[in-house]
């Protein structure tokens, strides 16, 4: 079976779906193919733009401040790349980077409104939501279910961490203790923190309860009331004004559940940032898919790109394989958003790294060839530190239009673009920049692809 498209996007996480939506909204015929679950679905569901400068210990107060600092120091960072446009005067580059990122964030925020994952947050200030460990992290956008309201503004706020018996992903007492110590040290509100454990049994068994079971359970009518009843007793005991839940408030009805619980208990209820399997990550993923399909895009799930044809400087087609069929898709332009190691865009063995579909040369964070690096030598002896693991900065090097480049520094194909975690030159885990880079590079790579397609037409 053969199909034709204007743009084929390979990879359906944040980068691929933002790119696909932008192109579909521009009137193009877009196909996004996705092999399996995206890394976006494993994310906390909050959208980081930039939290830290590499190796720095103070978080940026806003993405804006972060981008100015970052793009000055790291001119090849994916964020910096969006400022390289022949039409832009050198002194305007930084402003353009900030403006284009701001545009992406605004676009994303507006598009997520009315989906399963509406977000809140401003480009002018990072927020510091609480995680399931009781720590906080800087991020730009949180899902509205994660909004803790006036928790940190009120002097008299009392935060209650709610655990669920038999649900091991969240320990309310350890999180409460950790968060309280952090507040005491920083002298900020709340100064009173408590924890409790509720009984919620989606399948009538009191153990091995998973996030997805809880979220699906809470999507059903009548599931919130018994929780509110149990909560009231604990709220009264400690005088809680705010309630922190693990991120399990529902897939379809999370926001409704938050509001209902707030109404029934007279408190502010919010979700913490959590680890995979992540319900907010899945809500975000589903929402991005909905937005893309609504814009007229075609989404092929369970299809893995396995080969391609090219004609001179142009990529002509890719072949996608699913368990039952192979499809050849001809297109005018292609966008590679297959992610890094989790996504499968980059793989590696003891002899070096490979880009898995086109065999384009990957580079290290310092833009040397990563074809023959020994992965263990591109690591730090420290497991978790601001240095991060340099191997996580490997990926593809791109030209100013987000086209992957070869060893000679030329674009691999005139009509192949790349976005998201497959890009080299940034370590999202330490920068706290993952979904922000994905969205922004997807947004801008798509603009370039659209331009190319329209030029050809």
């Amino acid at each position, binding site marked *: 079976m053969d199909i034709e498209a204007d743009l084929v996007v390979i990879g359906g996480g944040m980068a691929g779906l933002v790119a696909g939506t932008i192109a579909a909204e521009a009137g193009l015929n877009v196909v996004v193919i996705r092999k399996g679950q995206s890394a976006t679905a494993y994310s906390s569901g909050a959208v980081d733009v930039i939290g830290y400068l590499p190796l720095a210990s103070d978080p940026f107060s806003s993405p804006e401040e972060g981008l100015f600092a970052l793009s000055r120091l790291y001119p090849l960072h994916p964020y910096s790349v969006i400022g390289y446009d022949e039409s832009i005067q050198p002194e305007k580059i930084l402003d353009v980077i900030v403006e284009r990122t701001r545009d992406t964030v605004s676009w994303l925020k507006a598009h997520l409104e009315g989906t399963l994952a509406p977000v809140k947050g401003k480009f002018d200030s990072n927020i510091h939501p609480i995680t399931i460990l009781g720590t906080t992290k800087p991020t730009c956008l949180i899902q509205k279910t994660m909004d803790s309201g006036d928790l940190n503004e009120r002097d008299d706020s009392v935060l209650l961490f709610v655990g669920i018996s038999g649900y091991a992903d969240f320990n309310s007492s350890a999180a409460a*203790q950790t968060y309280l110590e952090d507040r005491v040290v920083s002298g900020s509100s709340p100064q009173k923190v408590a924890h409790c454990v509720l009984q919620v049994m989606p399948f009538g068994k*009191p153990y091995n309860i998973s996030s997805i079971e809880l979220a699906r359970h809470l999507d059903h009518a009548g599931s919130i009331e018994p929780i509110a009843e149990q909560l009231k007793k604990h709220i009264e005991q400690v005088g809680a004004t705010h309630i922190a839940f693990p991120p399990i408030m529902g897939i379809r009805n999370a926001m409704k559940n938050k509001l209902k619980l707030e109404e029934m208990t007279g408190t502010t209820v919010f979700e913490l940032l959590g680890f995979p399997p992540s319900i907010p990550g899945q809500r975000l993923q589903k929402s991005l898919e909905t937005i893309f399909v609504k814009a007229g895009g075609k989404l092929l799930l369970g299809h893995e790109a396995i080969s391609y044809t090219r004609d001179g400087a142009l990529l002509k087609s890719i072949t996608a394989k699913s368990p039952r069929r192979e499809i050849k898709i001809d297109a005018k332009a292609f966008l590679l958003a297959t992610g890094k190691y989790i996504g499968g865009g980059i793989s590696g063995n003891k002899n070096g790294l490979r880009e898995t579909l086109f065999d384009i040369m990957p580079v290290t964070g310092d833009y040397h060839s990563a074809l023959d690096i*020994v992965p263990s030598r591109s690591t730090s002896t420290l497991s978790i530190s601001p240095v991060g693991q340099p191997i996580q900065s490997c990926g593809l090097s791109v030209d100013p239009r987000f086209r992957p480049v070869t060893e000679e520094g030329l674009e691999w194909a005139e009509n192949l673009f790349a976005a998201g975690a497959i890009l080299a030159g940034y370590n999202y*885990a330490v920068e706290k920049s993952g979904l922000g880079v994905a969205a922004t590079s997807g947004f801008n790579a798509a603009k370039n692809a659209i331009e190319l397609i329209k030029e050809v037409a």
Partner: protein
Amino acid sequence: MTTSEFDVVVIGGGSTGTAVARDCAMRGYRTLLLERDDIASATVGTCAGMISSGLKYRDEPDIMEMCSKEVVHWNRIARHLIMKNPILAPLLDLSDAASDSSYMDSYSEHVGEREVPPMMFLTPDASLEIEPMLHPDVIASVYYEEYFIDPFRLCLLQAIDARNHGAQIRTYCEVINFEVNNNDEIEEVVFYNRISGATESVKTQVVVNATGPWAQKVAKSVGDELPIRLNKGAHVIFDRRIVNVGITVKAIDGRWIYLFPHENTTLLGTTALDTWEDPDTLVASFDEIEYLLQSMETVLPSIREARIIRTMTGVRPLVPEWKVPEGKVTRGYQIVDHSETGGKKGLISFLGGKLVMCRHMAEAVTDIVGKKLGKEVPCTTHETPLPGNEDDVDIIALSKEYDISLHALERMRARRGTEMVKVLAHTKEHPEWKTTICTCEPVIEAEIRVAIRDEFPQTLNDIRRRIRLGTGPCQGTFCTYKAAGILAEELSLSGDDFLVDILDFRAERWKGIRQSMRGEQLAQEELAQGMYACVGNLDQSDVDYDLKPWEEGI
């Protein structure tokens, strides 16, 4: 400083030290065991757990006989911790077979008492039927059987049994000094309590130095010389049981290396490199990993496709023989009574030895201790079962009664034998403790809580050694924070300590993962970084994290 009095202080909580403490306590001597880290946290924790027939040491028939006898004892006192692996030595050309056949006779001499069949040659078809992944050109293979024991559990149960017999077991207590009187007799042992930060001392008549590769260092702290030959050995660990049976093959340098299914994983080892480094800093090198993989590849070509999850590295405390390769150094042990070599009176040190003979070593040294104390009592350690080995366990019935998977229960049985019922009993009152915390192994919450309450762990790493938490394919990616929460609850830890426990556990896992980063471990590590650094923001945490010896000097 508090001072109390003991008959014997044992230094070192490895296989030998815990065996000595158990023996001394069972003979009624007032016993204290001091371990600077945790039980089985060093040498023995990096071995394959083979309680060997002594096949490799057939040039030393006495040792082979001792090994066989000890296997019989282990099967009597600790059979719940024991697994038997059939082993194939595949031959690709005749010269492999013809070089030496005396080993067949030496091995077969002891098969009766070890309850295994005699060594035999298998045809290529029979070999491939047992292990289809073997090289198709195999011309024959040698078949034999060896027993394996869970080295962590063995040490822990010896320590617990010593405690049950009145010994004191003190982990995280590092010996820093000895008080010696004018007659060159040791009177007191001074040690630093790493948990409380206090320096303590105890009076004692005898000190047994069972510190393996650190024996020389301990002797030096009292001014005695103790030559030793340190030899580094590394393993590569795969994510599951990738072979049906053990495979052994000659490496590029003619040494035998092996691939053993071990618990839920497979071990490929070992290397042998003389070392003068601080054992705490050692990690496997790229060369060691390739040496092992390339050698095993000759008979098992698909080994390259298997998923490596980590490496582990230990140091053999060999008897100081010079001018011979590691493989020719005696695997027997020596007991050095320092009073007889011009050193301090009351100090006895071990050199050499193997896991299989740790009980024998303990018996021999405890006989000497008894003489010194003037209180000779016969040894019973070979007759008295270790805790949990009292009876068979009906896993199927327990699975029905408690509604827990057979797999989880069988893994628990392999650690606890009859004692597992104590863990399960907790789930009557706390059904939520049936929750699986480590899904790779698997480990349920009740066992973590029981281990914390009864088995004196201080850190997540100590829990790992007790119940194999975080030792599977994900290397603790998904259980580190869950188990840390339980530890924090049980020990009433501060928030800082909760985070430090997470960081310490990640650090120790990373120590072994890092060297073998390739293939799927790249994605696994991206996930771990995404969780603990990106979401948890722990890379920016300002808790008091102590750099580990292998992390320093970057």
